[in-house]
């Protein structure tokens, strides 16, 4: 059977959509530019925030500072910015709740006396643990206070003739084995998600146009009277959508590569492997998905009665294939052979491996590529069958 019909439809769809502002915006602008900018922005923000936080003094409001001059001197020598206030207990709660103060330290009246008698001397620390940005500050203040306590304890042991070391039977030594690359997991998850989504968006309007658009415009009937088998018409459209997806994918990955090189991930302790070589590997990992994505979106829009309905459906449906990625993030899934049979998830895992500069199993790549292409071809045939139905005419 002659395939010229497929070629004719493909060329026309490709050219027509090149002139359509909506297609161009979604294929060439939204995904490829906004996605990388978003991620770069988030990374840039957390870098500058992390830099700020580690340098900055922690502001602490202190009630009755005169009761513990030594403790406060210890704190202020270690990056705590002491600031005297007078509140009662209710006032202190209020001040923290309304964000007038971030951390308030209250020194009780008997602090000095109890300390001298060798009894536990309480201090009260007010803070709001629901504010993520302040939590680190509170943690540091707490740590400093207990360090101060520990120093006093050690002095007491010495005074009683006990070696302070003997009362510390266990010491924990932390070894952090995360490599700089593996620390970038969060950023990475966001990136792979956006790459895949942006790829799908690239072919969105072509898929809608394939059925709902042609029908609404009134050109579908005439198209169906041409001596080209009906399934060839949809194949041509699917191929055109797939090529737009490939363009969108390539641009998005390229933009990510460029954007990340500007952001300077090293400052965050992250080195993402996103040079030109890695970027082309990423594109190669995802490319088999274009046939799957284009067929999938065309099938869904084939069920819609109008352009608008198709847009609504696709807006929802486009996120479904990327759902497994969220589970991958939550469960911390690692690349396994079985998972390579799951489209989108296998691409996500492969991309993650590439960016983390870990060795790739050729077997995994082979399974991912082959299974994704098989699903894509099956979906394409399904779309062909759908295009043969009379209900298509609406």
């Amino acid at each position, binding site marked *: 059977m002659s395939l010229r019909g497929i070629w004719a*439809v493909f060329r026309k769809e490709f050219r*027509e959509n090149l002139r359509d502002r909506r297609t161009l915006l979604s294929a060439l602008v939204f995904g490829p530019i906004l996605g990388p900018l978003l991620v770069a922005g988030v990374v840039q923000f957390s870098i500058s925030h992390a830099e700020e936080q580690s340098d900055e003094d922690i502001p602490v409001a202190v009630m009755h500072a005169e009761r513990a001059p030594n403790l406060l001197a210890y704190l202020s020598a270690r990056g705590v910015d002491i600031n005297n206030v007078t509140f009662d207990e209710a006032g202190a709660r209020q001040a923290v709740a309304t964000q007038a103060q971030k951390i308030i330290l209250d020194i009780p009246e008997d602090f000095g006396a109890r300390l001298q008698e060798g009894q536990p001397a309480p201090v009260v620390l007010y803070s709001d643990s629901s504010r993520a940005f302040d939590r680190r500050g509170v943690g540091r203040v707490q740590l400093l206070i207990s360090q101060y306590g520990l120093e006093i304890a050690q002095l007491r042991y010495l005074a009683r003739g006990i070696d302070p070391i003997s009362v510390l039977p266990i010491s924990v030594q932390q070894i952090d084995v995360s490599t700089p690359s593996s620390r970038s997991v969060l950023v990475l998850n966001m990136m792979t998600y956006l790459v895949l989504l942006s790829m799908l968006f690239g072919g969105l309007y072509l898929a809608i146009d394939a059925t709902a658009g042609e029908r609404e415009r*009134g050109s579908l009937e*005439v198209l169906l009277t041409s*001596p*080209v088998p009906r399934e060839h018409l949809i194949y041509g459209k699917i191929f055109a959508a797939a090529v737009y997806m490939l363009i969108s994918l390539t641009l998005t990955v390229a933009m990510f590569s460029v954007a990340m090189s500007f952001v300077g991930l090293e400052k965050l302790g992250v080195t993402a492997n996103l040079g030109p070589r890695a970027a082309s590997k990423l594109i190669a990992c995802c490319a088999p998905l274009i046939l799957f994505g284009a067929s999938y979106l065309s099938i869904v829009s084939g069920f819609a009665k109008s352009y608008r309905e198709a847009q609504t459906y696709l807006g929802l449906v486009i996120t479904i294939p990327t759902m497994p990625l969220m589970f991958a993030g939550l469960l911390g899934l690692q690349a396994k052979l079985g998972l390579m049979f799951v489209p989108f998830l296998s691409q996500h895992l492969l991309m993650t491996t590439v960016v983390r500069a870990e060795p790739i199993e050729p077997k995994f790549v082979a399974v991912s590529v082959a299974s994704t292409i098989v699903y894509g071809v099956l979906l394409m045939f399904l779309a062909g069958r759908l295009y043969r139905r*009379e209900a298509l005419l609406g």
Partner: protein
Amino acid sequence: MLEARGLCKSFGKVAAVRGVSFAARDGQITGLLGANGAGKSTTLRMLYTVLKPDDGDALIDGRSVVADPLAARRSIGVLSHGAGVYNHLTARENITYFGELHGMSRADREARAAELLELLEMQPFADRLAKGFSQGQKLKTALARALVHRPKNVLLDEPTNGLDVMAVRGLRKLLTQLRDAGHCVLFSSHVMQEVEQLCDEVVVIAGGQVVAAGTLADIRARGGDRLEDAFVALMEPADAQPGAKT
């Protein structure tokens, strides 16, 4: 030459077409006349192969639309209801696209497009995107598209809908030219004057069935000297029939 032989088509429980038979000969303009919902469009859609008859068959130059729709499609040119064109293609590209779908070579389809652009006086907007076209310009584009592969048979579904007087006159001229060149022209309409002015033969459809067929004179003989009176006379028994899909 188009022949409908006992065409039947139902949509769910609604029987839109119930055994329609007629013939449209070469070198003639045949009008498919009927009220809205009489089954004209459904009949045409079976003839131009986008709907498959539940029963019966239609022959296009002897080729069955059921057994070999691809062959049947090669010898028909279709102007469907609404005449949608591709907004992001120029008039010329709209035409050559269909030439390509019909398997014409690049040189052939470009030459033919130029010919049609001239015939239909489309040069002023030939290379503009169809986005901003008027109804008349869209119709001309759709007509040229239907004729690009030089089809022997031309089927038009309510071609004059939404057109101004000048566009209708242009269309009439073109259909007459096609007839004189030996084509078989079949069009549907619910406008009496149009049918009266253009058609050599008329097929009147009501309630999904052919209630009368013949020359204008034959039809008039059934109910009065004006086609409209004859039409109303023919409709009376049909009014009892259940309505069908428009």
